[in-house]
């Protein structure tokens, strides 16, 4: 399809902006059904314990209580994307402090919470492991005795205790590579657990209809993953599970898999009434998930003239009590072991480990921010040792177009060199910085990043409605990033209509084609691709009907703005027929309703001849790389070690920006989430207990922690494989931000700080170290 005009490239406000500004927008926790009950959970006080029994009598005696649910109400049916190891609610054992072990439904939330506190669970405490080092000891207690029996989609280790994934990959000859290196840098980088901190805590509302079908409204990133998880853990057929996403208050990866939907369904089934479960912030922080903490040992070799020749990496991720996406996140981190650089000889190994803590899972960047922190910091350390400009060292090693990615896929497009040249200019890289404020040290740092935008599968259905407007049905959930608007802009452009004439579906498993989820920076790219394909089919039918109605040849008509098919030449030039009239003909007379559907799959072959891999998930459904660079300036307080980011410049290669304003919003928000990762965000556990489960003690950046301006430059080279030229932008702005900040701090204080986040204590510690 030719790249159409229309609303693409315009910074339109989000379709739902007005309802969100007025407070009318309905999120799951705002929804009320007649007779609806409220659910509250009971959380495990033990990091690891056997459940011996329950005493529910006191809870059930509370007036207004309608149902309780425990592990006795479920079978051993496991759910999960990568490893099926989780039940709807704890049964037999609890594996982390905070794990839901029982739940209550009552007429109001106060009653439900009061009753939940009266449920007595008898436990036999077991020894727990709350750190990777303890979990991998030969005598360590095992979290999942049945691990070997769990269904998995990768080659998992056997008899390795709590190690749930172990992956190895080699490219070239690392031994020879290091032998050829003039300079080698090796260091270990510590990475902390970051909390998603979506502003809307997880929520689900479940209601059974008289046919026995349950409808579940929930704050989710994927209605189809929600449906699959409920199907797996409750044993209900998918014909009886309908999942809908109303407005969603952020996700960032944390709402990709099951949250409280299984508990809401269990309570609704038992109480025979609709049940809404909304977690408090403390409950959300103690029961949901985090970014993977752990450590990365990295070694890089370069020749004297700054050519990277070899890299070695050992990575350990603490996955917490349940696997969730751990093997995939760990593999994805390794997938970016080279960063966006052409390093010919590489060996890497990665591990994901069960511990008795909150599970770690998908989080914006999916392993790449951890790896990029280690890699981009090490590039700077290497530049220092080589006496080279860090930007120039990066530019010299940028992976060229046509080269192979780690894993062997071809990199068909890259704008990394362009991004570096742009940022050199924009950030004034070669010029001196303004002088530091009194008592402060000033530094400047850079980081590059690469990420993917194609992932898994999706579909779209487009229908011409009777009045000539377009119905667009997709399974994508807009979690706030703006995909509804972007997809509507794409469809509107395809038909030369204003966005107001696109009727975008609500995500509903009963009504829309499959979509894997809002993650991996994939919706604009993948779902947009499906929209383009389906739109093409509807356009063909519009033109065919139009030509017949105007009694001209098919080649003589074209779409025109305002919902018309117009004759473009010959004696009948400018004769026209409206979409509404075409719809009428198709419905009442000829051909049947006009509908176009598509199904697309990301497929990019790996090459074992290029990179030898074992213990990996397949990444053949991952591709379309995107690149960027960020420069930050910081001031470090010489007395306290506190770091302030005073300037940020972000240059991202986004393909064609469908909605430039929304694209910049993604970049600014992603950078700031990365700033939090870099400077202040860290979930801290003491003996398995999360010590800071609130916004009081776990600090996300406020308006005072962000630089006065976050300058964004979009490099817009339309992506040739996409009907509208777009690529993903959700994750890249976060991926390198912490590294850019750490490099700026190292520049300011003259020493690297290799531990996230760079708290004042750690920065001061590095400054004071002789």
């Amino acid at each position, binding site marked *: 399809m030719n790249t159409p005009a229309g609303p693409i490239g315009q*910074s339109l*406000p*989000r379709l739902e*902006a*007005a*309802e*969100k*500004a*007025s*407070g*009318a*927008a*309905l*999120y799951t*926790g*705002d929804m*009320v059904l007649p007779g609806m009950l409220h659910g509250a959970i009971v959380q495990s006080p033990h990091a690891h314990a056997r459940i011996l029994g329950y005493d529910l009598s006191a809870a059930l005696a509370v007036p207004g209580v309608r149902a309780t649910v425990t592990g006795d109400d479920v079978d051993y049916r496991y759910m999960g994307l990568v490893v099926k190891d989780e039940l709807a609610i704890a049964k037999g054992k609890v594996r982390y402090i905070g794990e839901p072990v029982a739940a209550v439904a009552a007429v*109001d*939330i*106060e009653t439900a919470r009061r009753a939940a506190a009266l449920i007595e669970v008898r436990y036999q405490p077991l020894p727990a492991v709350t750190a990777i080092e303890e979990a991998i000891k030969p005598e360590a207690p095992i979290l999942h005795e049945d691990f070997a029996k769990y269904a998995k989609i990768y080659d998992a280790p056997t008899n390795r205790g709590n190690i749930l994934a172990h992956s190895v990959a080699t490219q070239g000859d690392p031994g020879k590579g290091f032998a050829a290196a003039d300079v080698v840098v090796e260091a270990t980088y510590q990475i902390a657990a970051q909390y*998603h*901190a*979506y*502003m*809307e*805590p997880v929520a689900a509302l479940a209601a059974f209809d008289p046919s026995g079908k349950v409808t579940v409204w929930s704050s989710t990133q994927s209605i189809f993953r929600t449906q699959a998880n409920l199907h797996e853990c409750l044993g209900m057929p998918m014909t009886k599970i309908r999942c809908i996403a109303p*407005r*969603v*208050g*952020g996700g*960032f990866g944390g709402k990709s898999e099951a949250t409280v939907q299984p508990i809401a369904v269990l309570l609704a089934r038992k109480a025979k009434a609709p049940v809404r479960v*909304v977690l*408090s*912030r403390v409950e959300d922080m103690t029961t949901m998930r985090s970014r993977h903490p752990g450590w990365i040992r990295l070694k890089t070799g370069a020749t004297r003239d700054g050519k990277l020749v070899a890299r070695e990496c050992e990575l350990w991720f603490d996955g917490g009590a349940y696997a969730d996406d751990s093997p995939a996140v760990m593999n994805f981190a390794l997938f970016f072991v080279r960063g966006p650089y052409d390093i010919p000889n590489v060996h890497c190994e990665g591990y994901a480990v069960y511990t008795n803590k909150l599970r770690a899972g998908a989080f914006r960047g999916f392993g790449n921010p951890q790896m990029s922190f280690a890699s981009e910091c090490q590039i700077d350390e290497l530049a220092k040792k080589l006496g080279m400009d860090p930007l120039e060292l990066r530019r010299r090693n940028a992976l060229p177009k046509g080269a192979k990615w780690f894993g062997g896929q071809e990199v068909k497009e890259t704008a990394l060199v362009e991004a570096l040249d742009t940022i050199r200019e924009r950030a004034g890289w070669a010029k001196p910085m303004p002088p530091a404020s009194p008592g402060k040290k000033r530094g400047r740092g850079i980081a590059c990043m690469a990420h993917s935008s194609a992932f898994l599968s999706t579909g779209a259905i487009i229908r011409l409605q009777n009045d000539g407007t377009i119905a667009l049905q997709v399974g994508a959930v807009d*979690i*706030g*990033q*703006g995909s509804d608007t972007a997809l509507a802009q794409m469809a509107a452009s395809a038909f030369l209509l204003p966005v107001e004439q696109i009727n975008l579906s609500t995500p509903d498993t009963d009504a829309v084609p499959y979509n894997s989820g809002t993650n991996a920076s994939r919706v604009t790219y993948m779902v947009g691709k499906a929209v383009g394909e389906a739109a093409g089919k509807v356009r063909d039918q519009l033109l065919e009907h139009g030509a017949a109605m105007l009694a001209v040849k098919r080649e003589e008509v074209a779409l025109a703005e305002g919902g018309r098919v117009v004759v473009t030449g010959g004696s009948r030039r400018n004769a026209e027929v409206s979409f509404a009239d075409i719809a009428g003909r198709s419905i009442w007379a000829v051909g049947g309703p006009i509908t176009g559907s598509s199904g697309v799959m990301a497929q990019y072959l790996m090459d074992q001849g290029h990179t030898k891999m074992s213990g990996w998930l397949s990444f053949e459904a991952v591709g379309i790389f995107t690149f960027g660079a960020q420069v930050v300036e910081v001031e470090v307080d010489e007395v306290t070690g506190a770091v302030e980011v005073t300037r940020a410049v972000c240059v991202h290669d986004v393909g064609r920006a469908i909605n430039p*304003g*929304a694209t*910049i*919003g993604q970049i*600014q*928000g*992603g*950078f*700031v*989430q990365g700033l939090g990762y870099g400077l202040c965000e860290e979930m801290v556990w003491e003996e398995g207990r999360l010590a800071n489960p*609130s*916004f*009081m003690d776990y600090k*996300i*950046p*406020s*308006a*005072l922690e*962000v630089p*006065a*301006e*976050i300058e964004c430059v979009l490099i817009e080279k339309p992506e040739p494989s996409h009907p509208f030229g777009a690529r993903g932008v959700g994750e890249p702005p976060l991926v390198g931000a912490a590294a850019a900040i750490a490099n700026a701090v190292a520049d300011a204080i003259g020493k690297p700080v290799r531990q996230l986040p760079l708290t004042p204590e750690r920065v001061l510690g590095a400054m004071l170290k002789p």
Partner: protein
Amino acid sequence: MVTTPTISITLNGTRRSIAMSATTRTLMTVLRDDLGLTGTKDACSQGVCGSCTVLIDGAPARACLILTATLDGASVTTIEGLGSTEAPGPVQQAFIDAGAIQCGFCMPGMIIQATSLLRTKPRPSRDEIRHAISGNLCRCSGYAKVIEAVELAASRIAP
């Protein structure tokens, strides 16, 4: 027979009599659960994030920390009181136009806070805006477009 205590408040310009089922109920609970005004959001219940910010007698306050029973005679403005989806108020419109709204969950509180700032300081500096909204957490925007939205609102309200 025990009579239910009631209080009288002016809610979004209308005088209302509110029956107190329990004196421990917060303003947020009463607004959301009893009165169906769900624009006021609960994101932390601890007065930290600012999502439940409302105006009480013109001053911004955290609805999750305030016991409704203490508000007899007070005037309360929630996000619903600033405009509607069809006819947004000037600050709401500026947030829409500036592209400041992403997931939107923090936005009612943010818009209330911005409204309060602009009433006391019609032309705030960028730094004054940052300070004024620093108690309202947003995880999506990075605040840049929120600050632009407040500036846009200021330029329209007090040109």
